[in-house]
């Protein structure tokens, strides 16, 4: 673990370099042979060759989307784990992704929504509703909000939303075709416009998340302690929840539901910087980007020339990790 502030800053610096390197790798690696020189030329001296179009229209968008979505999901996961004191909390396990997907499908199917803005707001609404319902369900009963109850509530709500999504899709095949695109979960073939549409919300989410680190530290010491120290705990929770909704909902709007990133990354970040949220959140952001870009690069090589869906990649990486954490045990 990195303890000294200077090494932590240095770590962040290394992380940034790694992300940049991976973005570069993501642009260069793949089916079409691309060289660094071509990448530079595609900016300075665009010659309308296939390579230049692929760089500009395919590689760069997917690299940037993977970076943005990876960071956002990881930050959302870190905040969720902090607020719920549950090491297994994450947007996919808690049904937030499923809720966002369900609302997108509902909007397309019944209200004919087709615009990117429409998708984004539907995804936000779905994420918010799922988060609230899961939180309420998880805190039913005398022993309050326990990790197991929360996980089960999340799984139940996720199952409910996905089966309702399936129901609508079976009844309305038109929506099925339009929405399958979103349900698959991918950073490939997505337009940069999608990212631009969601970027303002992401930026709000990222910036706010960096500033609530200290408050989160107090809150994780326990509700009583936090109140004793004069913290308005409800306010921190509400802000945290809004950030989660913005980041997780925005991610679904761009890339569809991608699981496990928000679950694994905060744990990895904790190996580096422990439980200090002021550091945990930026580290999660960088590591999330690293994971998703790497997974996306890997996805191109496994069954080349076809690609593995990125949701499958993250599930393969994430599931063993999830089981490891679950086996190690969590406090009930």
């Amino acid at each position, binding site marked *: 673990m990195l303890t000294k502030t200077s090494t932590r800053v240095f770590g962040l610096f290394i992380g940034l370099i790694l992300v940049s390197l991976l973005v570069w790798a993501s642009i260069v690696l793949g089916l079409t042979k691309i060289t660094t020189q071509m990448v530079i030329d595609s900016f300075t001296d665009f010659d*309308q060759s296939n390579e230049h179009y*692929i760089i500009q*229209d395919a590689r760069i968008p997917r690299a940037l989307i993977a970076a943005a979505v990876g960071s956002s999901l990881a930050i959302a996961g870190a905040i969720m784990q902090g607020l719920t004191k549950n090491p297994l909390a994450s947007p996919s396990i808690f049904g937030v992704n499923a809720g966002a997907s369900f609302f997108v499908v509902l909007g397309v199917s019944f209200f004919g929504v087709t615009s990117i803005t429409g998708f984004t707001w539907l995804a936000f609404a779905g994420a918010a509703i799922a988060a609230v319902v899961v939180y309420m369900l998880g805190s039913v009963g005398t022993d309050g909000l326990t990790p197991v109850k929360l996980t089960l509530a999340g799984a139940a709500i996720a199952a409910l939303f996905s089966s309702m999504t399936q129901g609508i899709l079976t009844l309305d095949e038109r929506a099925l*075709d339009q929405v*399958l*695109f979103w349900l698959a979960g991918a950073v490939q*073939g997505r337009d940069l416009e999608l990212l631009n549409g969601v970027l303002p919300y992401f930026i709000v989410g990222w910036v706010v998340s960096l500033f609530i680190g200290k408050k989160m530290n107090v809150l994780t010491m326990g509700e009583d302690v936090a109140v004793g120290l004069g913290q308005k705990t409800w306010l921190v929770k509400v802000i945290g929840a809004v950030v989660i909704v913005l980041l997780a909902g925005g991610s679904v709007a761009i890339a569809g539901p991608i699981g496990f990133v928000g679950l694994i990354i905060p744990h990895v970040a904790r190996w580096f910087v422990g439980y200090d949220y002021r550091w945990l959140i930026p580290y999660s952001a960088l590591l999330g980007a690293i994971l998703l870009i790497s997974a996306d690069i890997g996805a191109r090589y496994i069954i080349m020339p076809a690609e593995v869906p990125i949701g499958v990649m993250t599930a393969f990486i994430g599931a063993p990790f999830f089981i490891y954490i679950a086996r190690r045990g969590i406090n009930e």
Partner: protein
Amino acid sequence: MFKTNAWKLALLLLALVFALAACGGSDDTDENASDQTDGDQNEEQGEESDEESESYTVEHAMGETTIEGQPERIVVLTNHGTEALLSMGITPVGAVQSWTGDPWYDHISDQMEGVEVVGLEHQLNLEKIAELEPDLILANKMRQEEQADKLKAIAPTVFEETLRGDWKINYELIAEAVNMEEKGQEVLDDYQKRVEDLSTKLEEAGKLDTKVSMVRFMPSDVRIYHKDSFSGIILDEIGLARPESQDVDDFAAKGVTKERINEMDGDVIFYFTYDPEGEDGQAVEDEWINDPLWKNLSAVQEGNVYEVSDTIWNTAGGVKAANLMLDDLEEKLLSE
């Protein structure tokens, strides 16, 4: 005081329900037998087709079926089967809904007036079929194997073995099942002659070695069609060439990304878009054909790109579609 308990009662009643059900089930077999004899009697009393009332036996994927007399009320459970019947001048009483169109494909809808929808190929409405009182059912083992017993209980049923690109395999069986092998052979011969004619004309025009590429846009996928597909087999029959990457004996390349766009190139590109009711697959098509990468393809730059009907070139997969596809090829390749 009661001495009994809820559990015992529950088990007892359940057992009772199942005993009743089992009776119902076993009665049923007897009843089928009588059902069929009834059918025979009707046929005999019918008097309208005495010459054809001899029985004939068809061997198929799920055994042998004996059909008494010329079938008059046919229910067909595959979409290519519907086209086969129409091509022999038979209108079925019931058919499964077309994959696109409401409820029938455009190219058959004028011949399908009054035909009842009996569900989808993979989700049959058995009661509807029974209600139509057919005297022959044409089914497919891959789609309807599980319902074989029930279909047989309604009427004699003939099962095709496979579902694949080559429509002629199942066509012969259908012709045999409706006891119209001669008429069926005629349709096949006509088709064969058209294929040969087109092949000759193309050769004369020096265009038989044109490399034909086929691309399909779907709302959730983009595919490049290879040789073992409905349209791939027809191109092969004519003897048209294919781009190297498509000259492969399998079905299609699925999940194609923009990076593989070069595989779409050829001397001529035919593309078709699966666009079930509405404008949805259209969005994918628009995105691709407006992409600069698409515009960089040599076929596109030379203007040898044609949009054709997805129903005809892929989805329908029947004899009428095959003939219409020949029309398309003739028109587009020999127009200049």
